[in-house]
């Protein structure tokens, strides 16, 4: 999307180009449209394993930073739409390592394909690539900034498993300070007027700037707490994310926090019986292994929803092509 078009859009103007770069430039209607598409696709795929919507089209996966899961998910999505994929993973296998600029790379690759999916270590790389590219582009993660298809699949999972998002109490649990997943998710949840509770160890709270922005923009209440039992009490959804030990200054503190903020069968005694647990994966040990076998653990189902969501995203950006 060109800069002036993006500005137009920020000002509430017309939607010209179709890229998915950031949850921050999407509105509820657009997201609902993607959800509708995903549901249609899910039904179609039940009958026919491989669709023909993207037959003859090529999607290129430019993964300047390895992320096997996301790459596999997009590959599966394009293949199930009947299209082809090309691409690379990791910087060593790309010519950027030899000093080629991102701009030149995009100008070359767009000649080979119909749609670009990019993952890059630099924040804003997807926005820049979309500015340069004549082909529609989807951001599959740009440094610590955005990963919009993750947020879309998170919201879609909640909608599919628990119904209307605006009626849900959602608790975001764990390290809310680092990583883009929680920050984007809080934005998406607020857009759908969910009731949000943030539970994190002291020192790993979500950035105040984001909470204020979201409150101001969507007029929602957000509760923050360090108390795990209190924080999960009313939750319909508990969204857990990885708690890295390196984030704590001393080992003793890290051990203590890892114990307090671990989701265990005992802790879940304090939650509603029909709560569901989500996690962006990969997980380490923030969830007790026993829980994986419980019906409330929905993170593998969540991964599965990634495919129809990414199929819908591909169709959505390709609509005018």
């Amino acid at each position, binding site marked *: 999307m060109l800069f002036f078009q993006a500005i137009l859009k920020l000002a509430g103007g017309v939607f010209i180009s179709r890229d998915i770069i950031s949850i921050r430039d999407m509105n509820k209607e657009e997201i609902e449209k993607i959800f509708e598409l995903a549901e249609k696709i899910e039904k179609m795929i039940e009958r026919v394993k491989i669709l023909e919507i993207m037959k003859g089209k090529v999607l290129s996966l430019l993964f300047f930073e390895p992320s096997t899961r996301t790459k596999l998910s997009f590959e599966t999505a394009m293949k199930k739409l009947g299209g082809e994929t090309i691409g690379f993973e990791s910087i060593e296998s790309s010519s950027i390592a030899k000093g080629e600029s991102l701009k030149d790379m995009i100008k070359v690759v767009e000649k080979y394909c119909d749609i670009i999916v990019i993952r890059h*270590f*630099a*924040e*804003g790389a997807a*926005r*820049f690539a979309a500015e340069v590219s004549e082909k529609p582009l989807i951001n599959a993660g*740009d440094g610590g900034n955005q990963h919009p298809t993750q947020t879309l699949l998170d919201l879609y999972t909640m909608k599919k498993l628990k119904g209307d998002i605006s009626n849900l109490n959602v608790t975001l649990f764990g390290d809310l300070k680092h990583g883009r997943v929680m920050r984007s998710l809080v934005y998406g949840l607020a857009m759908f007027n969910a009731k949000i509770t943030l539970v994190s160890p002291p020192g790993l709270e979500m950035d105040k700037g984001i909470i204020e*922005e979201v409150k101001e923009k969507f007029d929602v209440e957000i509760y923050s707490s360090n108390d795990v039992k209190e924080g999960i009490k009313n939750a319909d959804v508990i969204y857990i994310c990885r708690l890295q030990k390196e984030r704590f200054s001393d080992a003793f503190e890290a051990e203590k926090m890892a114990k307090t903020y671990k989701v265990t069968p005992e802790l879940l005694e304090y939650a509603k019986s029909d709560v569901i647990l989500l996690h962006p994966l990969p997980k380490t040990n923030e969830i007790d292994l026993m829980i994986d076998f419980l019906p409330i653990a929905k993170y593998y189902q969540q991964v599965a929803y990634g495919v129809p969501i990414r199929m819908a995203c591909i169709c959505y950006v390709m609509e005018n092509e």
Partner: protein
Amino acid sequence: MNKENENLLVRKIEDGTVIDHIERGKGMKIYKLLNLKEETCILLTNVESKKLGRKDILKIANKELLQKDIDKIALIAPNATINIIKDWKVVEKRKATLPNILVNIVSCPNRNCVTRMEKDVSTKFIVEKREPVKLRCFYCERVFEKEDFEELFT
């Protein structure tokens, strides 16, 4: 210091630009951000001022500032006035006002921003708040305050 002595310090210039009403202590920052390597300059700091109590003044001989320079000044010293001097006289007075969008005025304080790695990209910032100033980078989407940019000119 009495008025007379101060006047001795504050030498007039024949042609050029006088940036007045710079917040006290920010004069050197303005000097640095304007990248004045060739020009003859006088920097006055801690000058008495009715408006600000104390202020800095930067005089640049034989130079007219570009709009780009004025936008930069507006970011670091929002109260500054720019006086254009010709033949010892002030011929024009301009207020440094921050535009709604800053294109290629300052670099992004975020080291991991694509604008710091890619050669062929101009920085773009959207002014989200004016008091206090909050700018969002169009690329990395981070929000920055005046102080984050000041650090770029130290």
